[in-house]
């Protein structure tokens, strides 16, 4: 930052520094209303280009659905955002100021990005409450792990999340004894405990009944606004349900964005039809 700009900011009575803003993850600068920038990202594994010059922008508070045939690079994209995979080229920024490519998985998680895996992954040996408690936002240093105690506010947040994911009555059960759908919800609940700004949700309704799917759609829609939510999904009915009339849907194909628009626009896009239905 230039000295002149710093000086200007200091004289500007209205200027609010990002670190003065309240709430968790207050260092995220979304002054341009964009939360996630992926620009020119490419990555290849053994010569196979999994991601090819991918450009994607996620707005603050939006619910974005990402669809695409198998091998389109959806999961690899999530791996890059969460720090599991380092791209060969390109840049990934979280807000204006956080360079995701410089951070590792725990740091990215603490910066405010939560990720749900394709296969529900919860701590099976621990109870539902313990799963949620471990995911609670807060200091993750070794010493604070040993010494930390739950505050009243944290307890309330935990109860709220347990209610939200419909597992309030199963609190004391071992996560391993939950049904497949309940595990999916528990994992979403664990993400919420981190109070992330961005939720990456990989195939949340795999193996769910129709009722469960509807409830999951409701839950994800209710989360948008306060959080940005990115959903990767195969199930078209579910995506239609989520995207509604005016939310943006992105179609990935061979590692880059093929089309972007409302569900209706995307469905009528000639290139998309080709990819999905063949020549």
């Amino acid at each position, binding site marked *: 930052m230039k000295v002149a700009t710093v000086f200007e900011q200091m004289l500007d009575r209205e200027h609010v520094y990002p670190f003065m803003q309240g709430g968790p993850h207050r260092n995220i600068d979304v002054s341009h209303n964009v939360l996630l920038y992926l620009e020119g990202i490419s990555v290849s594994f053994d010569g196979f280009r999994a991601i090819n010059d991918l450009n994607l922008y996620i707005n603050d508070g939006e619910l974005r659905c990402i669809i695409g045939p198998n091998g389109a690079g959806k999961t690899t994209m999530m791996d890059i955002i969460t720090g599991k995979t380092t791209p060969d080229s390109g840049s990934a920024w979280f807000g204006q100021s956080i360079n995701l490519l410089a951070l590792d*998985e725990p740091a990215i*998680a603490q910066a405010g990005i939560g990720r749900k*895996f394709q296969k529900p*992954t*919860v701590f099976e040996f621990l109870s539902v409450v313990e799963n949620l408690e471990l995911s609670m936002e807060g200091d*993750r*240093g070794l010493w604070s792990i040993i010494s930390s105690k739950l505050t009243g506010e944290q307890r309330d947040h935990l109860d709220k999340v347990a209610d939200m994911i419909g597992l309030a009555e199963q609190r004391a059960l071992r996560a391993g004894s939950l049904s497949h759908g309940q595990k999916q919800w528990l994992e979403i609940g664990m993400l919420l405990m981190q109070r992330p700004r961005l939720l990456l949700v990989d195939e949340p309704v795999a193996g769910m009944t129709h009722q469960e799917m509807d409830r999951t759609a409701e839950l994800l829609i209710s989360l948008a606004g306060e959080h940005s939510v990115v959903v990767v999904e195969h199930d078209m009915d579910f995506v239609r349900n989520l995207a509604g009339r005016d939310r943006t849907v992105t179609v990935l194909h061979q590692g880059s964005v093929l089309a972007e628009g409302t569900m209706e626009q995307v469905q009528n896009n000639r290139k998309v039809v080709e990819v999905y239905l063949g020549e």
Partner: protein
Amino acid sequence: MFIMNALKGDRGGQILLGVLLVLVIAVPLLNLMVPAGHALHVPTYTVTLMGKYLTLALLAVAVDLVWGYLGILTLGHAAFFALGGYAMGMYLMRQIGDRGVYGNPDLPDFMVFLNWDALPWFWSGFDQFWFAALMVLLVPGLLAFVFGALAFRSRVSGVYLSIITQALTYALMLAFFRNEMGFGGNNGLTDFKELLGFDLQSDQTRIGLFVASAVALMLGYLLCRVLMNGRLGRVCVAVRDAESRARFIGYRVENVKLGVFTVSAMLAGIAGALYVPQVGIINPGEFSPLNSIEVVVWVAVGGRATLYGAVVGALVINYAKTYFTAELPEVWLFALGGLFVLVTLLLPRGLTGLLRRKEASA
């Protein structure tokens, strides 16, 4: 009060600590007060044997901490045990003074034998008990810290980690076998005379060592229990069962592993330091990869991730070992192998799993 809190809901731990407390009081009385030849008399030989078992039980608790709770199958924990033992052995060697065979007041016998004329630098300080005691903790702790930092940061896990822990202890064994290392080579350190001025051959000292071992086991058990009861225990289990999930909710898995691994190595070091004066010798054989594997078998037989299971497993198998190697020496290794196979197949939760099942159904 604190102890009660720590053991709340831990039936096995309550029983274990109760039994140890009774032993600490009863064994000295039965040894010193009851005349020899009486049916209730506990001979000193038995007291020392029990003391030795208790130190091995502490080693098993240390292994259970990293294997049972954190899922790191360490096949090299005997290395930390042996290093603690060597630190204690070096102190005991310095205590011999001029009573060695060569009567040299400055050098241990093996150095005189090798024609060395001065004490190597790393032996300095070991004539002080406090320094040796510090080294008992620091040397294994530091090795575990450096080894763990390298291994966990590069995300070595599973079988690969087990293999390099095995390589670690094997490398140390080969190094300690060399005379030039200055640790007595093949023969190790032995012929100890006294500890803190107490004659190691006397009944009182041996009872003292037994009591110290029991107290160390109790404290070690409590420490592990307190750590695992708290949030750290749940984080460990989380790392064990779904490491990548733990990482993606923001835990630095490598730091958790490193911290617990280091604490565990220090416990193993303490166990080794108490073991050496009771058996009277420490040599490179203690680094043998087989020893480390045996500890894992004790924990598996007793029951993983329970802590008290590790104690039960260590005591049962070591008693069996003493019995079999005396009565039917050729059978012992087969019995050990068979036991491990049987327990793995029939009792996946170990011997203590049997009791817990009964408790659950009652």
